[in-house]
C-alpha cells in the first residue's frame, strides 16, 4: 500500500493494473509453455514442474498444470491427454475417483450418481447384465491370475462390442498376455483409452480367486 503511494499511483487503479498484468503474464506464459512442450515433444519436463507435479495429490488438477509429462503413462485415458493437454480443472470433479484421480465409472454407476440409458430409443427395455466371472490363471506365476467380471462390462456394453471381433467366447481360444494388451489388443482396445488404465494392475489381477476357476452365476 505504502509503496503504491510512493510510486504516485491511485491505489485502486494501480492494484487493478498490476493484477491484470500479472494474470495475463501467467496465462500467456502457461500457453507458451504448452506450445513449447508439445512442439518439442520432449519426454523431459523441467525439474521445477516435476517437483510441483509429484508434490500434489492426483486429484488436484489445477489449471496451471496444463502441461503433462509425456513419459508418464499413469493417466493415459483419453487422446487429448496423450497429445499433451492437461485435465480440465473443473470437468468431472464431483464423481468418485480411482487411485490415479480418474473417474471411477463403475463406482459412479453403483452409487447411482448417473443414470445412463441403454438406448437412444426411449421405449427400449433395459437389458439385464450377464453375470459370469472368468478367472484366468497366471502364465508366469509372477503375478496373481486375472479376473474378468462380465457383469460390470455388460452393464455398460453390448455383447457384440467384444464377441467375436475381439474375444472368441471359448475358454483357451484367446491369446491373452500383457504385451498384446499394452499394444492395444484384447482388453487394451478400451482399457487405457476410454476405461481405466492398464497400470491399475490390482483391478484385474485379484489374489483371492482360485486360478482357472470359472464361476457360472445366475443370469
Amino acid at each position, binding site marked *: 500500500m505504502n509503496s503504491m503511494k510512493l510510486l504516485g499511483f491511485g491505489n485502486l487503479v494501480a492494484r487493478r493494473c498490476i493484477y491484470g498484468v500479472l494474470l495475463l503474464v501467467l496465462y500467456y506464459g502457461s500457453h507458451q509453455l504448452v506450445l513449447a512442450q508439445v512442439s518439442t515433444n520432449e519426454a523431459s519436463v523441467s525439474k521445477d514442474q516435476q517437483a510441483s507435479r509429484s508434490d500434489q495429490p492426483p486429484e488436484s488438477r489445477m*489449471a496451471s498444470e*496444463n502441461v503433462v509429462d509425456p513419459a508418464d503413462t499413469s493417466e493415459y485415458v*483419453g487422446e*487429448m491427454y496423450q497429445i499433451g493437454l*492437461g485435465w480440465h480443472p473443473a470437468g468431472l470433479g464431483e464423481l468418485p475417483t480411482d487411485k490415479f484421480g480418474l473417474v471411477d465409472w463403475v463406482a459412479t454407476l453403483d452409487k447411482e450418481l448417473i443414470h*445412463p440409458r*441403454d438406448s437412444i430409443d426411449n421405449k427400449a427395455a433395459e437389458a439385464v447384465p450377464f453375470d459370469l466371472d472368468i478367472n484366468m490363471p497366471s502364465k508366469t506365476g509372477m503375478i496373481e491370475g486375472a479376473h474378468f467380471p462380465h457383469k460390470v462390462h455388460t452393464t455398460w456394453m453390448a455383447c457384440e*462390442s467384444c464377441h467375436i471381433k475381439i474375444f472368441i467366447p471359448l475358454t483357451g481360444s484367446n491369446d491373452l498376455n500383457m504385451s498384446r494388451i499394452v499394444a492395444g489388443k484384447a482388453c487394451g482396445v*478400451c482399457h487405457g483409452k476410454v476405461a481405466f488404465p492398464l497400470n491399475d494392475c490390482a483391478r484385474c489381477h485379484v489374489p483371492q480367486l482360485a486360478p482357472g476357476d470359472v464361476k457360472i452365476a445366475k443370469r
Partner: protein
Amino acid sequence: MKKQLITPILMLLVLPSMSYSEYGDVVLDRYKEIMAEVGLPPVVFPHWSHRIQFKCKACHESIFVMEKGASDITMSAIIDGEFCGKCHNGKIAWDPLYCDRCHSLDVLNEKQ
C-alpha cells in the same frame, strides 16, 4: 465494484481458447488435411459427457464401430441422420450447426 470484476471477466473470455482433456476423449482427424485447408480444427469427441447419459451399448456397435477409422464420419452423413446425426438432429440433441462445439481441437496445441 463493477470495475473490480473487469479482470476476472476478461480472464474468463480469454481462457476458453485453451483446450483441456477429459476422460476418454477421442480425436477424430481422419480428414485432418481437408479440414486444415479450410481452417477447421479436428473434432474432439467427449466420451465422458455422453457416457453420463448413455451406456456404451447405446451407440456401440449399432451406430459407431469401436475401431479407429472404421466409421467414415462426414458432415453429409451426419446431416443425413447417420452417426452423430442420429441424435444431433435438433430433435433429440442440438443440431449440427455449431461448428466449434465439435471442431474444437486447439490447433495451437496440436502435436508438432
